[in-house]
């Protein structure tokens, strides 16, 4: 009964806010959605809010240089990223219609490099790839996350959701045990966040560097002593899509700062 009321309540909230629920049940009500920055310390928040002190901006700045570097640069097709890339990051992960695969923003950049620019491939988590991703994501800052889970994206969404609720690792817990059921509570010295992907690539003080969503997911897997899947594994993409759907409506913060 309580569950039914909760579902009705969420559905009513969704209808009121005008965001399509797509027949999905939200575990965190829209008015309770909080970006990870809301769970961060005052120092971390100050670092993210000040565009100069935010070390992630170093990657954005480098990305801006890479954007227009070389003869067949990104800029030679897409011109000014401030216009052409505005809002792009809000839509990823998304299906690539050519290959039918689910791409995140970094995959899209890599694909563009190899298919259109004839440029050498970039390694996952390389400085160049993070810089370009940060620069492109930064153009959508303040815009709400809004991915599509319709059509060919649907099975990926479902796989991601299943991953989110599956117990894994020696600790034998699912993502949901922390990020749905216990967010806002203290775990060791940290407040558990809701696990939203709206600030990536992030500058993480623990890494002393910028890093992708994938790196963060690997850190989570390591934390619960589960097998870390290799970079580029499709499971990460599916989960990223589910997380983006779950965070829809939250503003993009790239480059975010986290502890």
């Amino acid at each position, binding site marked *: 009964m309580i569950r039914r009321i909760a579902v009705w309540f969420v559905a009513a909230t969704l209808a009121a806010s005008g965001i399509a629920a797509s027949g999905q049940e939200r575990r965190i009500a829209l008015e309770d959605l909080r970006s990870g920055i809301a769970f961060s310390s005052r120092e971390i928040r100050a670092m993210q809010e000040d565009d*100069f*002190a935010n*070390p992630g*901006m*170093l990657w954005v700045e480098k990305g801006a240089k890479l954007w227009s570097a070389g003869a067949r640069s990104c800029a030679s097709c897409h011109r000014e990223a401030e216009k052409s890339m505005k809002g792009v990051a809000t839509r990823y992960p998304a299906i690539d219609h050519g290959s039918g695969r689910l791409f995140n923003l970094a995959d899209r950049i890599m694909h563009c490099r190899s298919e259109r620019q004839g440029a050498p491939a970039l390694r996952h988590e390389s400085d160049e790839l993070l810089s370009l991703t940060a620069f492109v994501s930064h153009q959508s800052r303040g815009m709400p996350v809004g991915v599509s889970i319709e059509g060919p994206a649907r099975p990926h969404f479902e796989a991601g959701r299943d991953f989110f609720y599956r117990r894994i690792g020696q600790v034998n817990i699912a993502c949901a045990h922390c990020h749905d059921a216990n967010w806002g509570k203290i775990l060791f010295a940290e407040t558990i966040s809701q696990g939203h992907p709206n600030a990536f690539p992030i500058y993480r003080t623990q890494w*002393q*560097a910028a890093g992708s969503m994938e790196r963060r997911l690997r850190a989570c897997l390591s934390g619960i002593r589960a097998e870390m899947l290799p970079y580029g594994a499709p499971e990460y993409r599916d989960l990223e899509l589910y997380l983006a759907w779950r965070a829809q409506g939250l503003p993009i913060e790239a480059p975010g700062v986290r502890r």
Partner: protein
Amino acid sequence: MTARIQLIPPRPKRGEIIEIRVLIQHNMETGYRTDAVGGVIPRNCINVFSCRYNGAEVFRAELSPGISANPFLQFYTVAETSGELELSWMDDQGRQDSERARIVVSE
């Protein structure tokens, strides 16, 4: 290497105290970490940083492994004449780098 410089206020008056902020992209390798196969990653920190204002040194700092990666430095000087700030630094591998900023002083 990327570095960013910010002057506050951006257009100071003569005699006004200006805040100079700099953020340098550098991994400040401590020398205490090991790689995936147990080998020591050699220390590589920025060990000296200096700021020249129209050729005269106004600030110098010695940095060490206790300072985080991508160091952020903030210091002050007095705006005297328009000209150039030259910020330069060197790391343990002997790599030198510098960044310049125009400074425009109004009367």
